[in-house]
């Protein structure tokens, strides 16, 4: 009897030794080992989807209490389109009062979140070519989207961090990253270099997405970047760069393939009932994925954090302009931005990044800049006719025409992430909010941004400069 028990001890040793490999080198069960390249094209497809997933980061197109929503709400919060209310807890005041400094953690998060999308694109681009012999058209489809998204994110960063938008400016913009390398310490590319690379990526994407295995967006969906969306990106980038001719050419292509929404379907765009004239929108399908405009009007609790500025409201014809009822609502005795409240009024709504209305405005201003006032007026009138019931075509000319284009741009694209960049693009036009301080029913007391302020350009995050000494800080920070 006793001997038999004695055997248990060596048995225990042996049991302990077997299965050791699994014990100390386990295989992940709930995630995928990324140390090897994609094993099959399905994994590449998943990685393509994963790339888009990062766009819903609260720093980019989504919003939570403290986060920035840099490419959705922030450009209007930082402009004269919105005024902070007493319902605000002041979480975004640093931005609406332009008091950020280089240690601002939101700017750092937004910088990293943008490069995260770029990294996911670059990881896909690194391995995707191994499938080009077996599935060339599928590779075109994925590669085209990755290149377009990479260009888009760099351009959005450029809009915040570059001191100039001129095509051939030597001013420093942001590092343009084309390969995934966690240790790389890149320098800042100049605005010119960035434009070269952005336009290069977009041109390549346009070619690739012209020859793909299956349509990118089934039905009316606009969630993925297709050739049309790439054209819209090209139009915007060329427009900022002042390459007016190129902007007109691509805007023509977009407008031809996707006309302006009818008056009847315009309202439906904002509740996602209709996708007419939407060229690309970042998809939000549930509250868990975030809400793009919660930082301005937080629907679940009906908190009006930023209200539309009185000067902006005054621009709309309250009875005839279909945008007035679509963009604003009067609820609880105050005017709110209702544009992005979504179908169920829970703030879950797709974020429209590009739509045809902007293309008209790009083409109109570009024509004007090229001296073709006739074409400029025609586009402006076409847009106004579509948005204003019974509109009598205007006949502005010269500076009046230019001003009319800018006014319409402000009205049409209000709360779509343009206003601050437009003011910056037009020569850092000073910002003034008339509703200011307690007298203006606002907790905010800093209501002007002069042309010479450093705040027109975001600081390169201090955290980033400490690690990567190749990065030069922006002037004034």
């Amino acid at each position, binding site marked *: 009897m006793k001997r038999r028990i004695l055997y248990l001890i060596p048995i225990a040793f042996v049991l302990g030794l077997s299965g*050791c490999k699994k014990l100390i080198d386990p295989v*992940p069960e*709930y995630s995928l080992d990324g140390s090897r390249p994609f094993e099959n094209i399905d994994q590449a497809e998943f990685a393509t989807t994963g790339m888009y*997933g990062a766009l819903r980061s609260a720093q980019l197109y989504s919003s939570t209490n403290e986060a920035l929503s840099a490419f959705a709400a922030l450009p209007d919060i930082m402009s004269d389109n919105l005024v902070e209310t*007493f319902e605000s807890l002041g979480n975004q005041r640093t931005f609406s009062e332009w008091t950020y400094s280089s240690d601002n*953690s939101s700017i750092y998060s937004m910088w990293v979140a943008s490069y995260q999308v770029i990294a996911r694109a670059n990881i896909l681009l690194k391995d995707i070519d191994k499938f080009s012999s077996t599935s060339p058209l599928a590779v075109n489809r994925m590669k085209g989207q990755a290149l377009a998204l990479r260009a888009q994110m760099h351009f959005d960063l450029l809009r915040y961090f570059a001191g100039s938008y001129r095509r051939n400016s030597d001013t420093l913009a942001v*590092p343009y990253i084309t390969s*995934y390398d966690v240790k790389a310490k890149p320098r800042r590319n100049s605005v010119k270099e960035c434009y070269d690379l952005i336009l290069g990526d977009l041109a390549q994407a346009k070619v690739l997405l012209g020859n793909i295995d299956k349509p990118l967006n089934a039905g009316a969906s606009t969630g993925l970047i297709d050739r049309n969306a790439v054209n819209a990106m090209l139009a915007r980038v060329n427009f900022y760069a002042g390459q007016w001719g190129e902007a007109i050419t691509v805007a023509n292509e977009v407008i031809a393939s996707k006309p302006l929404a009818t008056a009847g379907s315009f309202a439906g765009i904002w509740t996602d009932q209709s996708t007419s004239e939407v060229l690309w929108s970042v998809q939000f399908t549930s509250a868990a994925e975030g809400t793009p405009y919660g930082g301005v009007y937080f629907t679940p609790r*009906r908190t009006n954090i930023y209200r539309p500025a009185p000067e902006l409201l005054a621009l709309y014809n309250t009875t005839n302009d279909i945008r007035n009822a679509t963009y604003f609502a009067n609820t609880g005795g105050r005017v709110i931005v209702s544009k992005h409240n979504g179908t169920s009024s829970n703030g879950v709504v797709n974020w429209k990044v590009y739509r045809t209305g902007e293309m008209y405005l790009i083409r109109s201003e570009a024509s004007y800049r090229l001296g073709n006032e006739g074409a400029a007026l025609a586009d402006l009138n076409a847009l106004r006719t579509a948005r204003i019931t019974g509109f009598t075509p205007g006949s502005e000319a010269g500076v009046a025409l230019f001003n009319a284009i800018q006014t319409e741009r402000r009205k049409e694209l209000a709360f779509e992430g343009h206003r601050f960049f437009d003011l910056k693009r037009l020569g850092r036009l000073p910002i003034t909010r008339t509703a200011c*301080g307690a007298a203006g029913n606002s907790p905010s007391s800093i209501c002007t941004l002069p042309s010479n302020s450093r705040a027109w350009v975001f600081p390169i995050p201090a955290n980033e400069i400490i690690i990567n000494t190749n990065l030069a800080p922006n002037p004034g920070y």
Partner: protein
Amino acid sequence: MKRIFLLLTMLVLHTMMVYAQSAVTGRVTNNNGDPVPFASIKVKGLRSGVSADANGDFRIQAKAGDVLEVTGVGIMPAEITVTSTSTPLAISVVRNTVSMEGVVVTGYSSRAKRSSASAVATVDVADVRTQPIASFDQLLQGQAAGLNVRTGSGQPGRSGLVQIRGVGTLVGSTTPLYIVDGIEITAGDFTTLNQNDFESISILKDANAASIYGSRGANGVIVVTTRKGKSGALRVNYDAQYGHSYFPRNKSQLMNSTEKLDYELENGNPNNWRPAEVDSLKRINTDWEDVFFQTGITNSQQLSLSGGTDRTRFFTSLGVFDQTGVVKTTALKRYTGRFNIENSTRNWKINWNTTLGFSKYTNTDENDEVVTSPLNAIRWTLPYFTPYNKNGGYLQDPTPTSQPNALQELLENKQFRNQIKVLSNVSLEYKVPFVEGLTARTNWGLDYMQNESNIFLSQNTAKGASTEGGKGAIVNGFGRTFRYMGTSSLSYKTSFGAAKEHDLTVSAYHEIIQGINKSFSYTGYGLLLPFQNEAAITQGTSTNNYIANVTGTGGQFQGLLSYFADVNYGFRNRYFINGVVRRDASDRFGTNNKWATFGSAGVSWVISDEAFMSNIRYLNLLKFRASYGSVGNQLGIGAFASLPIYGRSSYNGVPGLALAQPGNPDIKWETKTTTNLGVDFAFLQNRITGSVDLFNSNTTDLFFNERLPGTSGFTLVQGNIGKLKNRGVEVQLKGDVVKSKNFTWNIDANYTYVKNKVLALSEGQDETLNGERRVFKVGYSSSTFYLVKYAGVDPETGDALYQDKTGKITKVYNPNDRVLLGTSDAPNYGGITNTVNYKGVELSVFWVYSWGNELYNGDRVNIENPSYVASSLHVNLLREWRNPGDRTDIPRATQALEQNTTRFLENGAYWRLRNVMLSYNLPKKWLDRAKITNIRLFIQGQNLATITKFQGYDPEVPASSLTGAQYPTLKTYTIGVNVGF
């Protein structure tokens, strides 16, 4: 095998049988003739023995000529030869206050404290277990030098922050390893363990003691042994305790209604109050603490039984611990059961321990800045509001910011957690009969924990309205954690030499540990039906937004394979040398660094036993210890940290994969190398005893989330960098100030000084931020605050002033002007207990103290921020700058508050009256008639007083900053009784 089984099952029968035999009887007494209870008595040369009862009486089978060995807690070992089996033996023993004759328990083995070169502290559980706290780690506060326990929270069942000998890591865990009966248990979750089942707690502090735990030992080891049965008649003990708990006062005072409304009117009347409203609101002054708080009630009861024969002993207990928190709805209910049985024969020893526990835990959110947390609501809700409106419904905030009604959130939403915990181990020991001194041992055990959490969010509340679909949610989570481990060893012990003056023990071990967890949760939405459970969930469709969400995770969280050995050698029981070596392979380590080796060596010398010392009469003991060795830390590496990992993602209803971490194949353990010098002493007939230790530890290959350029798409990768030093002194002193027949007074005190210093970071790196407000800087402590100096207010403009790098006063806040300040970890801490006993009435007064640190008060940031005018504000703002010429320290309200300045940095030192206990043992002569062994009555107060400058509820915050929603340690008064039969 069969016979052992029989023994296990027929325990009681055996007990009776043994007692039927004739035996030698006797009584153990001290030099005063008073009985010494529960001493162990065994026949020399035999393995098992018996235990004396509470009266010191024992009965053992022996024949004339046998030598009986008597040992026990607090007495010097004695031997007596049986001369006759018919006359009762009277054994007189000497009281021993020098713990030098005790044992050092390492979890793998125990050795005589005399021969140990290690720094090990022992906490007598009997001294602390009556404190009305549900998490046993909090009981250790102030009990041993080198052990720093911050209670962190007074919430029932919450664990504290335990650090042994300072912080030896930058971002890794500082949590010690917890071992119960040789089995590793989950640290930081002791809600479902009953401290009344513990017998001793040993704290392994230096490398020599902890290196036998290899890559897990760097933060020290807390080794718990549980209560075992003693042979003798069945012993029954009943303990009960009842008491009340209260919230302490906050030093930061809030404005009352009149002050607050006047303040608002001065600052633009943001809430648009009309004069008539102001007048009526001024008449309301709600004390929100009254609204949210109740008196906490503690009710604890335990019944234990133990007994056995000289071969088989058992201990079993049942306990109930029921504590309601001070915040309404919060409570902990715990039921525990324990069973232990031991059987020994000539060559075999088998031991089985099982603990079962169930707890239901309803807690409240703490340490957050969420407006609906009740502990924030008591600070932030406006004093001129009431919880209910005139119609009896919840008052909804009418001001523009419209904060949710926190009382409604608390009462209408529900959350609780049920936990089941099982600890069990079986050990088997075999003395190999044909090799004298050779023992084989194997110990296998498991730690199982199962959590079921349930959150119900009503559609009427703000939390419920912000869920998917906006109509409430139920979150139901289930998780289980299972760890097993097995240790097998061979040990050889021998004595040799002419007079057997050489003692040698050599052991070799093999160990395997695996931990696996699994958890999932689902969230159901649309709680429209009138139920508070799953029945209320609405089936989700693509249009109603009620689609339920299901997630889960799991896998192996711990995998360790180890081989280790230790050697102990003693010469003349005076000179000792020992050594340990351990090799660990862990699933945490990177593919390029799979195996780690640790080891230590120590020497000690009992100099007071040398002949040349024998004429120093006041000296009873003097022993020197020295050791050097290495231990590792692997808590800080995540699962699969060495791999780049694709995680789950989705977009537009399509699944995707996205790289979630860059991975580092070189990731490895931290190595902590410690030199320890110690001296143990006893003077004046052992009236003064104590020890002093000096230590110096260097941690290399520190875990560090190395910052990556953000342009990579990642901010951090886990890696190993740099070097950190910890230096300290520990003093433990005990003294009998008065020692007479009826009156004794003794003092037990300990003091620790420990401070760390960063010696190196990444190559070429001199400093890097540690969170938002602290910095890791070479040459400074790792917890150094790094803030801009606040310099008051400009009397002309009311602007806040700061000091720039050059010392100049400036109006511009610039993060580049941050300066190095004090540390958040207190370098000095300890505890003092005074115990006075007069004729069985004992008063014990226990203080803990800590000084030398600073704390950032985030509560003040929120209530001194004028832009939060929609919630309650600090009275300090009443003296804010209003007009040119005002001299004050509070800037004008219209300026945005800069938080990261010294304005909110405060002194974190405190003295706390942790426990006062008055107890009385009923005289024996009263009890004997009732056949009761002992009755002890006590009344105690916990946290009765705290002396501190910190402007908050409690300076013991669970981090370097007080965030908000603080749950301080409570003032608790209890009365209790212990009865033994």
